[in-house]
C-alpha cells in the first residue's frame, strides 16, 4: 500500500504541474499540444517493455508485444506528426 500512496502523491503533483504548464499554451498551438501530449501518453511503451522483458513465451508475451506495437505507433507517429505541424508555424 505504501508504494501506491507515494504513486498517488506523484500523480497529483504531476497533474498540478501539467495544469500550470498547459493552461498557458495559446489556442494556435492546441492541435500540436494535443498530438504532442498524445505521443507522451505512449510512455505506456515503458510498461510494455518491463512486462515483456520478464516473459519469453505464452499469452503474457503476446499481450506484451501487442502493447509495444500499439505504444510505438503512438510514440513515433505522435512525435513525428507534431514535428511536421510545428515546422509549418512561422512568423511573418
Amino acid at each position, binding site marked *: *500500500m505504501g508504494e*501506491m500512496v507515494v504513486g498517488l502523491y*506523484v*500523480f497529483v503533483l*504531476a*497533474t498540478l*504541474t*501539467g*495544469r500550470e*504548464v*498547459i*493552461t498557458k499554451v495559446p*489556442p*494556435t*498551438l*492546441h492541435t*500540436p*499540444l*494535443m498530438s*504532442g*501530449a*498524445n*505521443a*507522451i*501518453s*505512449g*510512455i505506456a*511503451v*515503458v*510498461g*510494455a*517493455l*518491463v*512486462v515483456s*522483458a520478464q516473459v519469453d513465451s505464452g499469452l*503474457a*508475451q503476446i*499481450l506484451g*508485444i501487442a*502493447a*509495444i*506495437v*500499439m*505504444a*510505438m505507433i*503512438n*510514440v513515433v*507517429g505522435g*512525435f*513525428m*506528426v507534431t*514535428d*511536421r*505541424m*510545428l*515546422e*509549418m*508555424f512561422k*512568423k*511573418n
Partner: protein
Amino acid sequence: MDVSLGAELAYLFSSVLFVVGLKRLQSPATARGGNRLAALAMLIAIVATLVDNQVLNWTGIAAGMVVGSLIGGLAARTVKMTDMPQLVGIFNGFGGGASALVAAAELVRVQSTNIDLGLGDGFTIAISCLIGTVTFSGSFVAFGKLQGVVSGNPITFPLQKTLSALLFLTILVLGTSMMGVFEIGALPALTVFSVFTAIALLLGVLLVIPIGGADMPVVISLLNSYSGLAASAAGFVIGNNVLIISGALVGAAGLILTMIMCKAMNRSLANVAFGAFGGETSSAAQIGSGDQTARSVDAEGAAMILAYAQSVVVVPGYGLAVAQAQHELRKAMDNLEERGVDVKYAIHPVAGRMPGHMNVLLAEADVPYDKLFDLDEINEDFGRTDVVLVVGANDVVNPEAHNPESVIAGMPILDVDKAKSVIIMKRSLSPGFAGIDNPLFYMGHSLMFFGDAKSSMTDLVREVREA
C-alpha cells in the same frame, strides 16, 4: 518490480524533460524544440528500461518496436493536415490500448506464478484496463465518425443510457471480484478479466456513438485525457513513476482542452456526453426561413467588394477543411494584401473538428500565425471591419446565440454581423451542425457566395486579380 537507481534517475530526467518540453509549447517559436525534447525524453526512458531489465526475448521486443515505429512513422508522414483530427483520434486509441494490454499482460504473468492478486494490484489492473479499453474502442468510433465511416450524427436507441449504466455496474462488480474481495462462482480469474475487458470495449463504443460530429473537439480532447490517465494507471500497475508522471501530464492537458471546448460552446461536459446534440434529428431545424430571402453574389461581385475594402476578416470553419481550400484562401488573401487591404483571420475555438484545427490548416498554407486572432482578441474589431468573409462556418457566427430562446443561447460567437458587409461562402443555406437556421444569411448586409469553397476560392483569386 525493482527498478535500479540508475534507471530511476534516468526516469526522473525524462520526467523533467517532458515538463520542459510541454512548457516550450507555450510559444510557436520554441514549440518545435519542445516537441523534440519530449521525444528525446521518451528515447531516454525506453533505453533506460531496456538496459535495466533482463530481457528474456529480444527478438519479440525488437520486432514489436520496429513494426510499431514503421506504422506510426508512415501514418505521420502521409496524413493530410485536414485529416489531423482522425489521426490524433486513432493514436489516442493505440495509447489507451497499449496501457490496457500492459495491465492484461501483467495479470497473465502474475497468474502464471500462482500468486493471487492483492487488493491493490487487482484495483490498479482493473482501472488501467478499464480506462485503456474505453479509450481504445471510443477512439475507433471517433475515428470512424471523423472519417465518415460511421454516421457523424448522434446515434441513439431506446434505453441507451440504461444499458450503459447497467454495463458500468457489471464492470464495478467484476472489477471488485478481480481485487479478490469475492469470487464469482468458480470462474477463473482470467475469464472474469476477459468479460470485464469485453464490456469495457462495448462501453467505449456506447459512450461515443451518441455524440455528434460537431462535438468531436470535446470527444477527442477527452479521449486524449483518458489515454494519459490510462498510462498513469499502467504506471501504478507496474510501480513506475515515469508512467504516472507522463500520464498525469497528458491527462491534465486533455482535461484543460476539454474544458476550453465546452466553454466555447457554452455547454457542460455532461451535456456534450449525453445530450446527443445536433444532426438532423434536432427539432428546432424549421425555425424561420419561410419568407426570408438571402441575397447571393458571384465571384466577380465578391471580388469587387473585397478588393475595394480597407479591412477584411476571414472566418474559417469546417467547410474550409472539407474542401481543402486553405491554399486557395491564402492566395486570394495575398492578392488582397498586395492591393493594400488589411487582412486578419478570426478563429473560433471550436471551428473544425479538434482544438486548433484551423490554425494548423492555415499554418500549412503559410499564413503567418500573428494574423490569426482568437474570439476575445477580435470580437471588438468587427464593428470597424469593412468585409467579413466566412468560409464554411455556420454555428460559430450564428447571432441566434444572443437569443435566450435558442438552443445555442449563450454560446460565445464571432459577432461578424457587426461588420459593414458579410460574404458567406457556403454550399447552401442549410443549417449548421446545431440544426438551426442562421439569421445572419438573411440580413441586409449579408451576401451568400454559393459553391464549394475550393472552386469558389479559385474563382475569387482570378477575379481579385482582374478587379
